[in-house]
């Protein structure tokens, strides 16, 4: 790890928001680099000073009583209409947030001329940062697969291969190639593997193609109507093993 990366991730590190791999890399870097270790110490000291000395404002006595009184008055007098309106307002807020999130994703993905491999690599890196890896953390494929129902217009094949050294860690919704896709997260030793899956829109099965981006190996293939992208820092020979396991599902 270099200092520039470390400065980007150091706050995620002090907040315990990095994944296991990054966390270990950070620890190693802080052992080796006096400058970053100094930054780390200053941040920690400042944090403990803030948590120890910042006032936590307690609500005035009687606030709970006043709240209960107003809430109950509301129960007896309010007609149904505002509740209906409230639900729609809430939907509007949620939609706005969703559009904002999606447009950010689209913007970042277009940056490199729409090259899908670059997008996949970027998505893999993003998933490793902060607590972003899984939306449904579960090693049970019977939990992960139904979780995608209603969130995607297709059902991704979900396998767990602990006996072969690829443990399913969970699933996540992601956005690639201008569409929502399933991201299945596997772990092999300390390596995280993102397997992105979406329908192949009429393409026939294709052989596995390998490319490397930003130090990550990417494998790409089409099988039984699904497009697959696997991304990881795991060595490519082992990553190929996952391909045959996944292809064995369909």
């Amino acid at each position: 790890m270099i200092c520039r990366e470390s400065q980007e991730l150091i706050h995620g590190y002090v907040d315990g928001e990095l994944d296991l791999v990054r966390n270990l890399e950070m620890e190693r870097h802080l052992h080796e680099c006096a400058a970053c270790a100094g930054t780390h110490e200053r941040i920690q000291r400042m944090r403990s000073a803030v948590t120890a000395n910042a006032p936590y404002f307690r609500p005035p006595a009687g606030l709970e009583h006043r709240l209960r009184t107003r809430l109950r008055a509301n129960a007896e007098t309010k007609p149904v209409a505002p509740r209906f309106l409230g639900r729609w307002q809430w939907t509007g807020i949620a939609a706005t947030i969703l559009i904002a999130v999606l447009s950010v994703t689209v913007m970042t993905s277009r940056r490199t001329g729409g090259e899908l491999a670059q997008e996949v690599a970027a998505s893999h890196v993003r998933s490793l940062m902060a607590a972003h890896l899984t939306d449904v953390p579960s090693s049970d494929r019977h939990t992960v697969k139904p979780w995608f129902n209603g969130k995607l217009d297709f059902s991704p094949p979900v396998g767990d291969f602990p006996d072969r050294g690829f443990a399913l860690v969970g699933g996540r919704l992601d956005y690639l190639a201008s569409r929502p896709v399933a991201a299945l997260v596997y772990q092999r030793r300390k390596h995280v593997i993102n397997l992105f899956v979406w329908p192949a829109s009429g393409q026939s099965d294709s052989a596995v193609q390998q490319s490397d981006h930003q130090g990550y190996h990417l494998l790409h293939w089409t099988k039984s109507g699904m497009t697959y992208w696997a991304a990881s820092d795991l060595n490519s020979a082992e990553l190929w093993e996952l391909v045959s396991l996944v292809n064995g599902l369909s």
Partner: protein
Amino acid sequence: MREKAEVTRFEELALPHMEAAYNLARWLTGNNHDAEDVVQESYLRALKFFASFRGENGKPWLLTIVRNTCYTWLRRNRMNEITTDLEEEVQLADTTSVSPEAMLLAAARTESVQRALEELPVEFREIVILRELEGLSYKEIAEIAAIPVGTVMSRLARARARLQKLLSEPGLAEVRA
């Protein structure tokens, strides 16, 4: 007419987070009176939205509403406190020259820590409060402030750099109780 049973369920979900709601409102409005108004308004709004609440964790849900109500209040009463050009300010303050001793001197005083936090732009202050005082995760903070997780981390980085600088300025260190 809203059923009493529904209000009771709402109270069970939302009242345990009253302290967090008040603390956030107090930090964002800057005074006790408006903090209480904002909390009362937030709870009434939350009750309206309660029918559509499907999650399990009521705290981020309630704090989202408190935070939005605070911003409505700020827009009405403290428009100048809402920063519009946050994203342009990408340069981190250089804190490598700050001596830890100078910082600790100031940071050991409640009033100087409070003042430093109050000097932060409200968009940074809320992130620090939610992270350091409420101990919420980046994901929860992202949900409450309606920003991506990556932005939570970068705002925290910038907020902390500013705090280090503020807490090492001589003016703050000399504040007397």
